[in-house]
């Protein structure tokens, strides 16, 4: 039996998506076959619209459909804080945590010589002019070897420029038991332990006027 070409083409395109193997692609194609025409057209349109409308913010390289991204154009955000992350998805992850009110800078990758990615392939140069208004740069690349290497590179690069630098905390994830943590994480959770103060006084830095 030969499969219809348009079915084969659809399965092939779907199986190019990350995390979708050939079997899932086939199941997906059959599922789409059963959906009403409007749903397929809406999905197809969403793909084209997104590709047409979205681009990176010229300031922070986050994804946006406007001149500047929503964070960069919000005067209520703390302009003195810049959080450097690897990917646009990290911005969303941090925003969802609700703990951060500053700005971002998206590198679009990590330094990885074996994949041919040096510092020049990342949006690092564009970070430098932004430092003039910043008091603290948070290095929030991942805690993988590559993320750590990228953070160390940035630390070396930015330290001489006199800006405050911090690194996202290593430690136990919430809900974790010590005996299930690996040794390296446990060691960093101990060495990075936080002093506890009685009845926290009012925070020294005024809360931003969101």
């Amino acid at each position, binding site marked *: 039996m030969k499969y219809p070409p348009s079915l084969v083409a659809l399965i092939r395109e779907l199986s190019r998506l990350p995390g979708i193997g050939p079997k*899932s692609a086939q*199941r*997906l194609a059959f*599922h789409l076959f059963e959906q009403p025409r409007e749903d397929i057209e809406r999905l197809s349109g969403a793909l084209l619209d997104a590709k047409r409308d979205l681009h990176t913010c010229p300031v922070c390289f986050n994804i946006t459909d406007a001149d500047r991204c929503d964070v960069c154009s919000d005067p209520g955000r703390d302009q003195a804080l810049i959080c450097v992350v690897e990917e646009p998805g990290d911005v969303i992850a941090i925003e969802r945590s609700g703990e951060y009110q500053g700005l971002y800078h998206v590198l679009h990758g990590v330094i990885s010589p074996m994949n041919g990615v040096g510092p020049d392939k990342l949006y690092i140069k564009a970070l430098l002019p932004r430092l003039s208004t910043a008091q603290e740069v948070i290095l929030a690349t991942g805690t993988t070897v590559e993320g750590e290497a990228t953070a160390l590179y940035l630390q070396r690069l930015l330290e001489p420029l006199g800006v405050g630098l911090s690194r996202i905390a290593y430690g136990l994830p919430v*809900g974790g*038991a010590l005996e299930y943590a690996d040794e390296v994480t446990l060691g960093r959770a101990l060495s990075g332990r936080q002093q506890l103060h009685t009845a926290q006084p009012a925070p020294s830095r005024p809360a931003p006027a969101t």
Partner: protein
Amino acid sequence: MRSRTANRSGIVLRRHVTPAGDIIVTLLTPQGKLKLIARGGVRGPLSSVLSLFHHVLVQVYQTPGGDLATAKQASLEGALTTLAVPERYPYAHLLSELADLLFQEGEFSEAAFELYAGGLRGVSRHADPEWVALVMSYKLLALAGFVPQTAFCALCGTPEPEHPDPHSGQMLCRPCAAQPAYSPEVLGYLRSFPRQSVRVLMEAPLSEAGRTELWRALERFVAVQVGRVQSWRVNLPQLAGA
């Protein structure tokens, strides 16, 4: 040992396979209803154990996020293999769907479990599975606190009504009614079933005509009082070869 796992024994009321190959089952257990996911389960041995109507022992893992609990392992405690036979199959669906509708998660009820399990056993073995399904459906309703009012007319309150109410599934007096009165055997059944044991009810099966009246009353009453039952939409007696 900190543990988030527990072993639960129950019958699979519902089973659904997601396109990603996860199995989602609803169990009725003596400790209440329980919804579980077996991730990727359709490709493994859980697929066989977590079959519809199987009595299973499941190792349940409660994920920290408070998401759907996960079935880690499962073993078979009992399978009623005759339930796939056309004469019995639709009634097993009906009882399971009713039980799913009547009992909520977190409600501890050993009686509900026993009644449902007994109903499935009866449907799987008894020579008259339709009668088992009728009796057990009414008994499940009664156990969940849904008993059709037979003492007074649903509209005007006149005592001892004898006519069906096609809207509510309750009963109407002659002046309020538009349909002829229930036959004496149906009237007797409706008035006595909450007080009588399953055994006594099983020993006095109704006629073909009486069952048709009872099914109709049950369908209306459940639709109005409890909720929509999909199994009604399938022509049960026809599927069963009647």
